[in-house]
């Protein structure tokens, strides 16, 4: 068997066993129980909740993130083992949502960690979540869910953005801007 | 072998004691050396006497021209020789410690020689009245020695000692009077020969009088009220000296009393009972004692009880045990009294003091290979062969109690700051500990004399 074939088989099997760890900072946490219990029963796709990032494959960011929580999210994400995937829930993770003018919540999650999939909505309904998972599985099978590879590849960019955000300093943002301009 | 007249053992120190003030007039410091020389001479003489007795059996010497039973007779048997050697040697060693002291009182040296001589006198005399006289000298000397500290406690102890000692003397005198009244003699042999002619009542009365009188000196319960106070009040040296000299002489006197003098059945039973009570009370009282010197004093009482039990068993094995116990106790207790300080704290931090004192404690609680062990082993062996389980049980329980309070003593000693004793005291302690080890590891050197002593005592001799 060639290496590519092996990878394909590996992906084919792995997509049926997605273990997730949810970082329940926002309102999205409330949407998870119906997804997991008998109404929608996510387990039939082999998706199971896990207690720690060491064991998990999928990181769910279920809502807005402040700078302080972002620090924790980054730590959790880095503790997960490859291959790993991130799903952003709701508009808060996309553009800040209703916290668009808050001095302390980040506006775009994908600036700090690679996000494979966003679910729009405030909050998304369980059906949307199910759909997202199915989509993610499809992406995995096709080899499109490559957020973890991006994180390795553009590690310095992600780190730079994280560092900027953690510092809260406007001048640092300006400096980088100038660097990019050059 | 030079044959030494036993009387020298008494006469020389008495004589030299009276010359001591003369020496003092010449030089104050010379008195110590002078006294030490006298004591060494005495110890040498006692050794020669001991060798002589071991070789030739009992040595008699009559004094003042009269023949016994009227004249004064000295009769040194094996046990007397052992004790004389013990008392003289150890008192020399204990006197060594006086060199570490700044003060040099001629009175102390005189009294010391006096008490040594009179204690020796008790163990080598063959005459009841003589014994009484020596008892009186010992007692009077001892009062002085106890008070020599010139502190409140020492005066208190000395006073109690005087009162009880006087009562004891009175009882001894009563006993002697009773015997003399019936038998018209005071010679031990004579009494032993004709004791059967005495009416039983008189015999018993005289026995009671004598045992009470001597019991005061031999620290027997309930006659020993003076002991804790006197030991506590006295200086370490004097307490140490007491536990080797007068108390051993007293117990010897009781031995003579129950073996030679008045061999009546109930006397032994009484002595046994007294021994058991003394043992129990002494050990229990020591258990809760906070002051280390008082604790050692109570422990001495307990040991005296043990020796009395051994003596009263009236068998060869038990007598050997008694001799081992006496030697062990004299060595160990004089060692402990020398080493002990207030609350014992700190003294055991110094290994040169701790090791000898540890050995002393081991000997007293009967650990091998020290004299105390051989004594206890023989005593138990004899009790076992008689099937005296109850007494064995008492001895065992008190031994456990003993080890509990000695454990506390050891712990207290190891805490606190390191303390030093004077060089002479350390030397004395180490010599005593070495003697303990030697006697323990080579018990046969004491065993053979002890066998003879036992045989002699059982045969009605001195």
């Amino acid at each position: 068997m060639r290496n590519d074939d092996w990878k394909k088989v590996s992906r084919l099997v792995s997509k049926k066993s997605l273990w997730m760890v949810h970082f329940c900072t926002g309102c999205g946490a409330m949407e998870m129980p119906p997804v997991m219990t008998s109404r929608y029963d996510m387990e039939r796709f082999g998706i199971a909740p896990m207690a720690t990032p060491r064991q998990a494959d999928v990181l769910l960011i279920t809502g807005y993130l402040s700078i302080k929580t972002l620090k924790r999210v980054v730590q959790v994400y880095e503790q997960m083992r490859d291959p790993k995937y991130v799903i952003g829930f709701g508009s808060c993770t996309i553009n800040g949502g209703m916290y668009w003018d808050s001095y302390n919540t980040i506006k775009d999650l994908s600036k700090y960690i690679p996000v494979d999939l966003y679910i729009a909505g405030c909050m998304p309904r369980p059906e949307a979540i199910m759909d997202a998972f199915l989509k993610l599985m499809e992406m995995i099978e096709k080899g499109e869910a490559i957020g973890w590879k991006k994180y390795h590849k553009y590690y310095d960019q992600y780190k730079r953005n994280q560092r900027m955000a953690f510092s809260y300093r406007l001048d640092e943002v300006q400096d980088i801007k100038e660097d990019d301009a050059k | 072998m030079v044959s030494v007249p036993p009387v020298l053992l008494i006469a020389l120190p008495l004589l030299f004691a009276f010359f001591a003030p003369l020496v003092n007039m010449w030089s104050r410091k010379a008195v110590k050396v002078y006294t030490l020389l006298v004591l060494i001479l005495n110890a040498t003489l006692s050794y020669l006497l001991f060798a002589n007795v071991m070789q030739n059996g009992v040595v008699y010497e009559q004094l003042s021209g009269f023949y016994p039973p009227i004249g004064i007779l000295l009769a040194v048997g094996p046990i007397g020789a052992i004790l004389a050697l013990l008392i003289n040697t150890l008192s020399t060693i204990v006197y060594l410690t006086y060199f570490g002291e700044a003060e040099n009182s001629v009175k102390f040296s005189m009294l010391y020689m006096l008490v040594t001589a009179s204690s020796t006198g008790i163990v080598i005399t063959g005459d009841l009245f003589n014994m009484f006289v020596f008892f009186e000298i010992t007692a009077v000397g001892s009062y002085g020695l106890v008070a020599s500290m010139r502190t409140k406690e020492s005066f208190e102890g000395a006073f109690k000692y005087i009162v009880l000692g006087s009562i004891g003397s009175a009882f001894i005198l009563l006993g002697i009077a009773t015997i003399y009244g019936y038998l018209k003699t005071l010679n031990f042999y004579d009494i032993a020969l004709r004791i059967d002619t005495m009416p039983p009542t008189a015999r018993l009365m005289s026995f009671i009088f004598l045992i009470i009188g001597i019991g005061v000196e031999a620290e027997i319960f309930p006659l020993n009220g003076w002991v804790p106070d006197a030991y506590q009040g006295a200086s370490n040296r004097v307490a140490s000296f007491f536990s080797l000299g007068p108390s051993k002489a007293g117990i010897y006197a009781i031995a003579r009393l129950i073996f030679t003098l008045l061999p009546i059945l109930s006397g032994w039973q009484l002595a046994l009972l007294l021994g058991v009570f003394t043992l129990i009370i002494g050990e229990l009282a020591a258990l809760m004692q906070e002051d280390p010197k008082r604790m050692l004093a109570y422990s001495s009482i307990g040991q005296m009880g043990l020796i009395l039990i051994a003596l009263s068993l009236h068998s060869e094995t038990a007598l050997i045990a008694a001799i081992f116990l006496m030697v062990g106790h004299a060595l160990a207790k004089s060692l402990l009294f020398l080493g002990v300080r207030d609350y014992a704290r700190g003294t055991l931090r110094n290994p040169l003091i701790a090791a000898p004192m540890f050995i002393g404690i081991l000997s007293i609680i009967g650990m091998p290979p020290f004299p105390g062990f051989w004594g206890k082993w023989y005593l138990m062996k004899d009790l076992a062969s008689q099937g005296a389980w109850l007494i064995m049980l008492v001895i065992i329980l008190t031994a456990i109690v003993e080890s509990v309070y000695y454990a506390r003593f050891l712990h207290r000693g190891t805490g606190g700051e390191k303390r030093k004793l004077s060089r002479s005291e350390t030397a004395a302690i180490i010599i005593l500990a070495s003697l303990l080890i030697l006697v323990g590891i080579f018990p046969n050197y004491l065993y053979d004399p002890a066998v003879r002593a036992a045989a002699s005592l059982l045969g009605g001799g001195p």
Partner: protein
Amino acid sequence: MILEAFGVMLLAVIVVLALDRYPRIAAAVAIIASLLPLFALTSWAGIMGISLPSFLAPLEFESSLVYNLGPGTLNLAITPLGWFFLLLLATSFPLALLFASSFVRNRAGGFYAGMLLTMLGSFGVLLARDALTFFLFWEIMSWSILAMVLRGGDRRAIVSYLSFGSLSAMLLLFGFMMLYFKTGTFLFGDMHLDTSLTTLVALSMIVAGLAVKGALMPLHVWAPHVYSRSEEPFVAFLSGGLSKLGYFGMLLFMYGIAGLSLLSSWGTFRDVSYFGYALAVIGAFTAFAGTVLAVMQDDLRKLLAYSSVGQLGYIAIGIGIGTPLALTGALFQALNHTFFKAVLFLAAGAVYYRTGKWKISELGGLGYRMPFTFLAALFAIFALAAIPITSGFAAKWLLYEAAIEKKFLFVTPIMLIAGVGAFLYAYKILYGVFLGEPRYDVKEAPISQLVAMWLLVLPLVIFLIFPGWVADLAAPILSEYGMQPIPHTPYVITTNLAAYNTLAVIFALMGALLVSLILYKWKPQEVVPHEDNYLAGEPPELYEYISMHAASNYYEPFEDVFGPVFRRGAERAWEIILAAAEFLGNGARRLYTGLTQDYSIYILLFFLILVGWWLLW
């Protein structure tokens, strides 16, 4: 050569005392002197049917000796039983000294002198052929331990050791004297005991006296205090070597002198004498209670001490049951315990040497810092917990088989559950000291300490592969007691109930390990530091003030359940006895009022009583 050996050892005691200022030279002298018992051991190997090459036995020791001491005679002779226990003591002793050579700094002369004296005493005890010799050397051994305890200076240790030591001595003395009363001799060979009550009481007393040294409950009170307050090399020898002498004595008196038929004459229960049955029940209780108490300790030394108490209980069970199987098991357990407990105490010492801490909750993460110490301790812990990859299991297995064979319905579950309890405290040591968050940046233990530990681990491996060799060593002992040795080959031990094949276990384990290793090494891995831990996203560097080491109060739920029952139960009972004695003591003290008139009245009363007694009589 025996007397010379004693002489040389005594001489060595004096020499090391004099060399107090030069600890290394003192250690060298002590180690050289400690080889004497080892040479005696090799010289006497013939009586166990072992022929050793002559370079291993350079000194010739006579096999028996009679020496007249005056008041008594010393009778010394080597027996298979003595040889077996000498094997345990003589091999662990030089290693403990080797460990001490880098461990003991303070007043080293006294330390080595005390150690040599304990060995001298035990050497005599093992050779003793009469009660006087036994008692003499027993007590020398006993008070040398006291001397070592005094170095620690802990009040409870000194008081409890001296009082229990003297209780033991007095029980032994009483027992010997009762035997003397019955038989008229102290010679073990001439003691022909009858079935009278006196003999029973005497034997019980002797066994009780020996049980104090063997730390059987409820006579164990001294052990935790002493074990936790003395220097580790000494404690390793005390727990590993000297505590076995109690069981040596039990075997000697119960089976060597009294004999099985005599014990059985006082009644039997399923062919086991009531005497032995009682001992087995006490042993089982000790095993269980010791284990429970060990689980609750936070002080590493106390934990090991209670664990010793528990493990020694197993030996008592074996001796109590008294079948060939059980006795072999007891001997095996004694052998194992000697080595693994010595290793554990030494490892604790090494940890203390590097970190200066005894509390388990204050240690942690030393496994990566001191890997060789950790591995030695791990091996010892496997032996302690009777995991079948060390020799520890074979001993326990023999005991279980023996108990089941005799249909001991209530003893066996207690033994088994105590065995499970051992996992609990074993893991407490492992986690608290060696695993978890690294908190000390220390070096590995010195080479002398490592060598001592690893040489002690060696027997645990050897007897894992060849448990039959221990059965071989037990065979002459059993034949002395008129028993058949258990059927065995070097690898296989067979009983009526089942068989235990070490070879199968080892090969299966090797195979399984190999397969899992392949499975496991298939994928690469990277090593991350301990700080990179999942703590709900919290980076630990933010919380310097919170310890991530969860070792304090580790078994709190367990303590909540068992604590009220077991904590200091036995000690309280003894304290009540002590309080009663103190009450009596205060009473006696009050007799001495300090008033002269009272004393005078005593004399008068005494006189009156005597006169009255005489009048009535």
